[in-house]
């Protein structure tokens, strides 16, 4: 029995004991094919999924290597059935290939004739396949390339896409590592470089990096690699402007070369930044802005925050299979479970780095997560107890008792840039009045938002209350403290985003603080438990304190 760091469970989870001397080597060995599911402080959990194994196949790993890695690092005997299953699953990828035939155009080619016969009979593929060219080849309508890949994945026979990409309209783009307009020189971080290389070698795919790890730069570097016109899809206008600023600062692109395609402006330029929202807006049931995809011969399409990609975008993406696609995200986990569509339509995962590792490299501020439990007053408790069930969360989350606690927390960190985050507008207004700080919410105009954010960046404003609009893609580099008073029912994704707000590198390497104020003995606590689990699974220290400890005067201590 080898004393390896890895324990293989029969439900296909892998437990990695990270204090083991071989843990680092083992992590490197299994990272390509196993998805990191949880990374608490002692034992990390990875999971073997078909998608993960196919991702590994797409990256050139074979079943033999996977099985060897499992056996080599496993502490206990690995069940035979699991090894067989791994090998069989991996073997399914690439039995079918999408390729360009000089004579027949796009074809589905089989390395295993029986598989082709099997899938050709499937009803799910009806209408996608053309004539049978020979025993191993069937013509494919080029417009069905994406949908075919989706359907094949559902059938469990993911196809390898070797049909290549169009180069698109060339456009010179360089990284400006010397710094533009007197900016300081900089270099791409090592993991960013690796991510871009992995993406470029694979052609299309997703790069998974935590918030604050510089995903924008990965996008910029990929554009510099492609040197072609680029369409960038982002979640909202503010995020788009952020991209634009970053691109102007970090690349040879000038303001005139970058267009904004949003609700306010409709510019189409060599590099165009469009929001999901405008693309998915409909008039009379039809998508009105689809022309954008054909407006230029795009050489690269960048999807920011892939995990938020709305369903219609998947449909458009199915038609973009001949263009290089780069997905950027902090997590492949989608709340709607459409990870398979990301895999088949945008591409396999090309690069992934666990948060903690990047943090230990010093790129992300270490964060301390604290849950503050507030005891409701008797009146509040009585109101809560007699309220309708659907009102429970709102009542617990917006309890007035939270206000003094938020103030006490702010007082703990005088002079730090602080964000107070909440989901209920009324509560935010209460907070704004109580703390006398400005609020950014959905109805705040973009101009006002930019003004407030700029003021926050420069330090004019120390504290900002923001609603859900702040969840995604705004860059607030100097927020060192986040205080969360209410959320969307403990969604994992929201948590990752909010934590991201405070995880941006700090100028002086100070510690970030992430506070959550919850009402004791209410449903709020239950959601907090989800949050605690999620953050602990990400490896963050998580402590729970009582509000009295925050509010009360520090008792004199005797040693």
């Amino acid at each position: 029995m080898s004393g390896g760091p890895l324990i293989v469970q029969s439900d296909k989870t892998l437990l990695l004991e990270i204090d083991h001397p071989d843990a680092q080597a083992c992590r490197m060995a299994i990272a390509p094919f196993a998805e990191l599911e949880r990374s608490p402080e002692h034992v990390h959990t990875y999971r073997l999924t078909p998608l993960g194994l196919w991702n590994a196949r797409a990256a050139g790993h074979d079943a033999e290597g996977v099985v060897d890695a499992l056996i080599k690092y496993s502490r206990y005997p690995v069940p035979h059935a699991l090894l067989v299953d791994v090998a069989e699953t991996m073997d399914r990828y690439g039995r079918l290939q999408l390729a360009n035939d000089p004579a027949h155009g796009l074809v589905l080619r089989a390395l295993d004739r029986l598989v082709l016969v099997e899938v050709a009979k499937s009803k799910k593929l009806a209408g996608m396949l053309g004539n049978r060219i020979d025993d191993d080849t069937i013509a494919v309508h080029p417009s069905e390339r994406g949908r075919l890949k989706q359907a094949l994945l559902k059938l469990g026979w993911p196809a390898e896409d070797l049909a290549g990409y169009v180069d698109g309209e060339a456009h010179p783009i360089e990284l400006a590592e010397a710094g533009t307009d007197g900016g300081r020189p900089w270099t791409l971080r090592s993991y960013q470089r690796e991510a871009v290389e992995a993406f470029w070698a694979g052609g299309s795919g997703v790069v998974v990096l935590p918030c604050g790890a510089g995903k924008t730069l990965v996008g910029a570097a990929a554009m510099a690699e492609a040197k072609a016109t680029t369409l960038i899809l982002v979640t909202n206008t503010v995020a788009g402007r952020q991209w634009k600023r970053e691109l102007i600062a970090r690349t040879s692109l000038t303001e005139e070369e970058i267009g904004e395609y949003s609700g306010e402006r409709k510019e189409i330029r060599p590099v165009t930044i469009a929001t999901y929202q405008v693309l998915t807006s409909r008039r009379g049931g039809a998508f009105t802005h689809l022309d954008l995809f054909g407006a230029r011969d795009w050489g690269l399409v960048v999807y920011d925050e892939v995990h938020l990609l709305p369903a219609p975008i998947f449909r458009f993406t199915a038609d973009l299979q001949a263009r290089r696609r780069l997905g950027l995200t902090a997590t492949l986990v989608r709340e709607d479970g459409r990870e398979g569509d990301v895999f088949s339509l945008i591409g396999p995962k090309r690069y992934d780095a666990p948060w903690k590792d990047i943090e230990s490299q010093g790129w992300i501020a270490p964060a301390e997560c604290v849950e503050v439990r507030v005891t409701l007053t008797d009146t509040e408790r009585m109101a809560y107890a007699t309220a309708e069930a659907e009102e429970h969360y709102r009542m617990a989350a917006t309890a007035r008792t939270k206000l003094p606690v938020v103030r006490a927390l702010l007082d703990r960190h005088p002079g730090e840039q602080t964000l107070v985050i909440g989901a209920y507008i009324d509560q935010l207004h209460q907070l704004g009045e109580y703390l006398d700080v400005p609020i950014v919410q959905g109805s705040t105009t973009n101009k006002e938002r930019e003004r407030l954010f700029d003021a926050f960046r420069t330090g004019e404003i120390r504290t900002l209350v923001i609603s859900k609009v702040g969840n995604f893609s705004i860059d607030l580099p100097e927020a060192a403290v986040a205080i969360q008073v209410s959320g969307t029912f403990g969604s994992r994704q929201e948590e990752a985003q909010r934590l991201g707000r405070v995880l941006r590198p700090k100028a002086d390497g100070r510690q970030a603080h992430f506070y959550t104020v919850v009402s004791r003995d209410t449903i709020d606590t239950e959601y907090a438990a989800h949050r605690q689990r999620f953050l602990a699974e990400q490896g963050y220290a998580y402590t729970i304190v009582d509000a009295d400890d925050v509010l009360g005067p520090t008792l004199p201590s005797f040693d």
Partner: protein
Amino acid sequence: MSTSLADHLRSLPDESLAALLQLRPDLVVPVPADVAALAIRAQSRVSVSRALDGLDQFTLQILDAARLTRDPVDGTTSVDGVLALATSGPNRPAPTAVRAAIDRLRARFLLYGAESALYLVGGMDEISPYPAGLGRPAAELDAHTAALCADPAKLRRTVLSAPPSARAILDRLAAGPPVGSVPPGALQAPAVGTKDEVPPDDTNGGAPTGSPVRWLVDHRLLVRVSGGKGGTAGMVELPREIGLLLRRETGPLGPLSSSPPEVVGPVREPKAADSAGAGQTMEVVRHTEALLEQLAAEPAPVLRSGGIGVRDLRRLARATGLDEPAAALLLEVAYAAGLTGEMDLPGSVGRYGADQQVLPTAGYEMWRAGSLAQRWEQLARAWLAMTRQVGLVGQRDDRDRPITVLSAEAERAGAPAARRSVLGVLADLEPASAPDVEEVLALLDWRAPRRSRGRETAHREVLTEAATLGVTGLGALTSYGRLLLAEATASEDDPSDDPLGLLTDTEDGGSAVRALDTLLPAPVDHFLLQADLTVVVPGPPEPALAAELDVVTEPESAGGASVHRVTTGSVRRALDAGYSADDLHDLFRRRSRTPVPQGLTYLVDDVARKHGGLRIGSAGAYLRSDDEALLAEVLADRRVEVLALRRLAPTVLVTPYQGGRLLSVLREAGYAPVAEDATGSTVLSRPKARRAPARGAVATRALDPLATPRLPLPRLLGVVEQIRRGDAVARAARRAPAIMRGGAPDGPVPAHGHHDALAVLQQAVRDKALVWVGYVDAHGATASRLVRPVSLGAGYLRAEDERTEMLHTFALHRITAAVLEG
């Protein structure tokens, strides 16, 4: 010939005779009376067939060679003759191999006698009529064909001139068996233009000759023979000479190989194979336990037709995360190992026996207490010995009903032998070599072709099951699997060594258990605690630890290690089970190798704080008042002590007695209580007079008891009919003729009664007349009956009894007399 075998046996020294009996043990059951009897038995079809079953393909082929080289006159052959024939083909085996095969045959007395004059044991031709797949000599079949065979040049020309479709038939028959059935009509000429048409040729004068078979028969290459299911018309046989001619390429005996087929499958790293197998054994034990726990929680009912229903199997499989075949296998193995059993459902014992259900036995507890390796060994041994072919589960039987788990339809007596032979093949290979399935089947086919033919499916299943159970790993027999097989075989083959079964049932198990033990993880007594409230046990937990975790945590993932989670619910459960918060803190501190996370401590305290915040009790009635002082007074009052009142709150008292009693005792004591209902409104009560149940008054009955009741007409008619029928019965009984009534033993029974009776009855059937029939009933008593005969035949009289309107059947031999009525 049998006498000569007997003579031969008689002349043998004791050791040789013993050696024969050793090789053919069936000869001594029962022990033959003398050598002659032994000889007869040794030549019996059954015994010879058994002896052949154990022989490998090469030896059987050499036996065929001996049969082919028999002298047609005296039936003897010689070693040299066999050798010559066996080595005449292109791939000639080494003469030593042939001699060794002959020695094997002689040792079993399938061949006996001197080297130059070997006799074949009798009965062989009945068992396989066609030695080496060759037909009978042409001389025995047909004179014309014999003439053709006598002229080799012409024979060759004829064969070469065969059209391709005919040649294909020839080649197939030449490869053996040499007889083929001919579909009806194949010997007739086919319709012109069909694909079977054979082109006209010169030998037949240029006319179409019909089907290929017809062509062959016409050209005397095939001979029509009798026999077969299709009657005389349907069979053709390829004569031996032509068969030999067609076998020029392969040799007269067909392809010969004196050694088993080569295995080219990979040879695994022994450690890797053992490790994969050991991993599988852990799974098997864990899954079996999970299955049985499911059965314990919800026992599966036994179907009327036996076995567990498909739906229950599906439920068990889903609950344990297994696929159905694997679940079926584990259920069968667990049953064979005595871990589950049937129990009558209480209260269900009825006419057809009791309803039964399958659930774990007491033996299951014993099994659970064993180590992983011991538990696995118990399962694996049961698997080796069980006479069940689990692969049949889910298929359909002859009557197209699904075969269910544990049902009688999956019983196969040959299953253990199939397992032994398959694992035996693996065991005889180099350690850790992993042949693929086809190679194993080929090896089995060579080793004992007569035994393995038709059992390919069973053999494949054995390989799958062995992999599932961890007897093999990565397709190779594991080291402990090899030991287990050896132990199981040894204890069976040589019971004299261990007549009481002591060696195999030792406390720590056999060498297989020890070998497996070293491969399996050792139990651990600690866990790792993490901030996400998971508890990771890095190995199989010790029983004590497992029991603690069972109470305090929810299981999340199992396997080599186990992951558990502490949740609010699980902490509450632990508190319910009697743990205090301090106990839990202590447990986590003691068992954890890592610091206890603050979140966990907080959780335990938080749940403990709320635990017991609501209290439940039972009471017969309560007493409440807004006046606390009044309640205090009642509580202190000695006169109401009998009520055992208890103060729950300042304004509420409870008593175990019912409200009525509370009310009356308090009233007696001079208080003024009022009862209230669930909504809190007062219930006013007034004393209620006691009353008997209501009954009708006399006045409703008929006023004049003497008045005649009026009867309706239909009823009167019915009564009349009833009376008439009774009268008829009475008259009939009276009128029965004297000979009928004369059942008295002394009364002279008419001698002619029985003979006459038949004539009378026949006449009565024709006339449809009423007849008095006298007969002896089943108890030997005589009786008589007035009936109208309906039919007579097959030894029975069928007759109608007008009074009872029933059809009776009388056995004719019981009828003593018959007299026409009137």
